[in-house]
């Protein structure tokens, strides 16, 4: 679904990583770990064409990301749900409207009424539906971001530190939601530096854990 083939990325003359390869097969579950500044977020952004690789090929749903025009990038993002650490909401819209945003921007407003309430209940935000994003706690915002990422039923969900701002209990709840989505056939890629969280999930999901360090991507080993 997404394939990075000998991809390099750098800026200001400095290479963040080079010759990096990764394949996200349909239905797979990947954790991406590594120290801060290793390039985890950059790698994720390459996966949803938010950045262009300086060398190598990124293929998204079989298409070379470098050849995608802006409309094609927008269309591919309707098949990829993205959860950011800082969530990124439109603060003047209610949580319900924010979650429904991927449907409304893609002209599928008629699906909102059916999906939205069910999704709000799934992430436990039914009572907060009409509140504005700044009125929600960190955990609630993360759950809302997850709901927004999945409302269009994307094939891939990419989450960048989805549990970064929440307590242990909430992080477990969020990860359970992601595992549940994976069991529904969704491909999941999560960037996190929280190894304890990964350990806690090992029993629930068959996940591949990758470590990005010093510009190299490798299979994580003994630290887990």
């Amino acid at each position, binding site marked *: 679904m997404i394939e990075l083939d000998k991809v390099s990325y750098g800026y200001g003359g400095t290479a963040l990583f080079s010759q990096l390869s990764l394949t996200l097969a349909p239905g797979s579950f990947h954790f991406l770990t590594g120290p801060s500044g290793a390039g985890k977020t950059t790698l994720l952004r390459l996966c949803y064409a938010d950045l262009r690789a300086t060398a190598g090929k990124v293929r998204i749903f079989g298409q070379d990301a470098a050849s995608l025009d*802006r409309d094609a990038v*927008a269309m591919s993002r309707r098949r990829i749900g993205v959860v950011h650490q800082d969530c*990124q909401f*439109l603060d003047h819209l209610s949580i319900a409207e924010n979650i429904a945003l991927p449907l409304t*921007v893609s002209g599928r407003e008629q699906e909102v009424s059916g999906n939205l309430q069910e999704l709000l209940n799934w992430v436990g935000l039914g009572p907060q539906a009409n509140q504005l994003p700044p009125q929600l706690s960190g955990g609630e915002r993360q759950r809302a971001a997850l709901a*927004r990422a999945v409302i269009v039923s994307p094939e891939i969900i990419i989450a960048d530190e989805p549990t970064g701002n929440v307590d242990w209990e909430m992080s477990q709840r969020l990860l359970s939601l992601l595992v549940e989505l994976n069991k529904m056939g969704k491909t999941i890629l999560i960037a996190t530096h929280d190894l304890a969280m990964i350990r806690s999930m090992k029993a629930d999901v068959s996940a591949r854990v990758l470590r990005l360090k010093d510009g190299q991507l490798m299979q994580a080993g003994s630290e887990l």
Partner: protein
Amino acid sequence: MRAFLELIVGDQQADRAVPPTGMTARLTVFVAAVMAFLAIIALAVSLTTTRVANVWAEELAQSATLRLPADPATADALLLSALDVLDTTPGISRVRALSSDEQKALLEPWFGPDLPIESLPVPQLIEIVADGDGYDIEGLRARLSAQVPGAILDDHTAWRAPLVEAASRVRVIGWFVILLIGATVAAMITLAAQASLAANVQVIRVLRLVGAKDVYIARAFVRRYTLRAGGGAVVGAILGVLALQFMPQGDASGSLLMGVGFEGGDWLWPILIPLLSAIVAFFATRAAAFARLREQT
């Protein structure tokens, strides 16, 4: 055109995606109103000048003046000869010798009402009005030269040509002013739209993240600025038309400053100005929005 109509109908969801901007909105409406007001005044002056100049030029083109030498000894004989020549010239519909009182009235602005015109050697004037086809001016001059020595025929060419040229210049300047106003509206809308786009970088980023195409994002900004410019221009055009009602009214053929305003088909302009303002805003915002979006991932 389809895009423009879709824009007027609007997309409520796309509109809501971009937060309202108070000061930029008010400034856009204000500037659009001022520009429409100025455009209405410039157009009214330009159209009125053209209209009045046309009336004057037409009247002058149909008439001529024959001036006889101011010699009391030969005045009556010259007048009879001149009238005889003019009466027998094809293409002249009316000939009239100005009375002493009429000539006195013509001189009054310069010499006052007490001018003893009877005791002064004032040339006799004869008004000549041509019919539709006109007359052979050179042929008439030749006959007058032979039969009325010293008579001077003035066909008003010397007056008419600069008048027509002046009117033409005023018309050109009027259109140039309209163009400048249009360019100013476009520049102002572009700046306002760019400011709004810059202030909403995060909004645009979120919309792109969830799969919004550029046209969806641009539409929200374009619709907003098009309606603001159009609405402001409607107010400005109404105020402009109202302001014209305060100009001195009178016979427009009498003075350039009398009766400045619109007549007949000219009244389309107060309707067209807001529409043109909205069209300018539509294209200016659209260009600014797409340029800005291309810079952003």
